[in-house]
């Protein structure tokens, strides 16, 4: 078993919704009691549909959104207990790349400024020359060239912008990067290049990724571990190979089956889900998936299943797991 870089314990983020002073406060349980550990130098994928809380999860564990409960432990330190000054070091070590390449770069700043900004914040007293050399190195690392430093974001295509966003993250020598749907806004041919670049940089720089996505085929390409999120809870987690070849939770099975496959010769019977994804404001009782589950029984409506290990490192939260 490899060493864990990051341990997330009972992480919780509840948003309070208040329509007016007279109505009752409603709570959105965006992330609800999420626990998992990310081994060093691995890619951990978090898969989920809209409303699953996957984006909130990524931001909460970087403390970009204040959590309402739980711990995030990196190298024995719970980052939620640090004061601002001590936390700065972890800000540098933990970076994030956002989904939208068109809005995540400041439109009025040169690429050099965008990438160099973080260095000015974290490496006090660093010289202009040094910054430039470092930017040049990372630009080449992500497949861009030195002269791209003096351009503005709108001069780049979506794929190139995502490379810039990634360069900005790795320029600080982080250990851990949250990738929030980094390729979902890109065309397939461009996506392939960016995915390859992500994979290579991870190997060269000894990075650890948390990869947030809704696209299972990309997960299969990039990830070592998978956690499947449904309405704020992890319903299944384990090694990617285990989860993908023999899914234990009916929801994972459904997701895998729904994923369209570009191969007309592969005939298979698709599972079609019942109904809509329920709102996280008022999630179903018992097992949250029971309203759409084709195996659901009486017990599922009443009792919330507890997570159990069905084989080494493969955990599932279901009363009647498929294996």
């Amino acid at each position, binding site marked *: 078993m490899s060493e864990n870089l990051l341990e997330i314990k009972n992480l919780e983020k509840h948003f309070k919704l208040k329509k007016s002073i007279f109505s009752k406060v409603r709570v959105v349980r965006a992330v609800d009691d999420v626990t998992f550990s990310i081994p060093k130098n691995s890619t951990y994928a978090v898969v989920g549909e809209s409303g699953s809380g996957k984006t909130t999860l990524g931001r909460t564990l970087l403390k970009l959104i204040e959590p309402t409960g739980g711990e995030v432990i990196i190298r024995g330190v719970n980052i939620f207990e640090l004061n601002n000054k001590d936390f700065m070091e972890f800000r540098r070590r933990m970076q994030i790349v956002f989904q939208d390449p068109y809005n995540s770069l400041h439109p009025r700043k040169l690429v050099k400024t965008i990438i160099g900004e973080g260095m000015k914040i974290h490496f006090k007293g660093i010289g202009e020359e040094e910054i430039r050399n470092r930017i040049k190195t990372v630009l080449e690392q992500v497949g861009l060239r030195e002269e791209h430093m003096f351009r503005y974001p709108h001069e780049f295509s979506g794929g190139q912008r995502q490379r810039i966003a990634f360069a900005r993250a790795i320029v600080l020598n982080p250990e851990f990067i949250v990738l929030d749907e980094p390729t979902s806004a890109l065309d397939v041919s461009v996506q*392939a290049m960016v995915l390859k670049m992500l994979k290579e940089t991870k190997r060269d720089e000894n990075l650890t990724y948390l990869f947030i996505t809704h696209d299972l085929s990309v997960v299969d390409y990039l990830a070592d571990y998978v956690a499947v999120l449904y309405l704020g809870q992890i319903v299944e987690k384990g090694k990617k190979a285990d989860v993908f070849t023999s899914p234990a939770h009916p929801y994972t099975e459904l997701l895998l089956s729904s994923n369209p496959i570009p191969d007309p010769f592969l005939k298979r019977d698709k599972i079609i*889900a019942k109904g809509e994804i329920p709102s996280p404001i008022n999630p179903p009782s018992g097992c949250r998936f029971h309203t759409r589950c084709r195996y659901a029984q009486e017990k599922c409506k009443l009792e919330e299943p507890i997570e159990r290990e069905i084989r080494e490192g493969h955990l599932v939260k279901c009363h009647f797991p498929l294996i």
Partner: protein
Amino acid sequence: MMDKRGNLLNVSDLHVVFYTYRGVIKALNGVELWMNKGERLGIVGETGCGKSVTSRAVMNLIEEPGKIISGSVVFEDRDILKLKEDEVRKIRGNEISMIFQEPKSSLNPVMNVGFQIAEVLGKVNNKSIKSQYKAAAEMLEFVGLDSERVMSMYPHELSGGMAQRVMIAMGLAPNPKLLIADEPTSALDVTIQAQILELLDDLVEKMGNAVMLISHDMGVVAEFCNKILVMYAGNSAEYASTEKLFKKPMHPYTTGLLKAVPQIGRTDELKAITGTVPDLVDPPSGCRFHKRCPQTMEICKKERPPFIQVEEDHYVACHLYSQKGGENK
């Protein structure tokens, strides 16, 4: 070239441009496509390849600053581009209807769902809107919605999947000969996407409509369509039956695209197509793909490859298969 290749729709040599301050965007550059009755054609390609523009041009819905400069869109035996506006309007929404990517913004936010469907039905059947409420409710049941509840709902109360079902109900209400679906599931979650595609598959099977499905997702097209047109930079690159296209892709762009799509269980390394989509204000000469093509030849820079038939149900615009290209090889 001008012979009829499909018995429902024949688009040939379609050119569309958009006038902007940067210059003229040559969005469509001689698009060729055809469809038979009851057939399902998938149009795939990357952002900016002109797939949506093609679907709008088929309905003669290109608006300022765009303009159709040449070509023909023959629907059955009428050239839509030559008809008068009121005649086209009769075809639109009766014989050809359309559903869009953003179902919620395609519905009128201040009218309830029942009224909007009844309105479509009223127009189709030439009757008052009031008399169509019952039929509208049936239509909603038909697309798998609870009509009692949904009839009085407003678009903002619908989820994405429900809204797309309502759009499908409206699209299929006139029982069109051709249904154009522009990225109908791109904004939806995978499980909902599967539901919607299944529903569409079912209904179209029953009613026998032809469907033109526009998508960037090879998987969706592979699962839903029996013919596929691959577009690149405003050109028809390759047209084939789904099986042939996947078994034996001919155009280097199609080959590249198929190698770039990640797929569950796929073990070989992804291969990206180098370079980026060209700027259509100043497109590359000759074949618009030649700068990114791994098999580019001298002739590709100079001459536009013709769109030719290589075998039954398989057409390609590439010099590797044209006569001139053959000589150069």
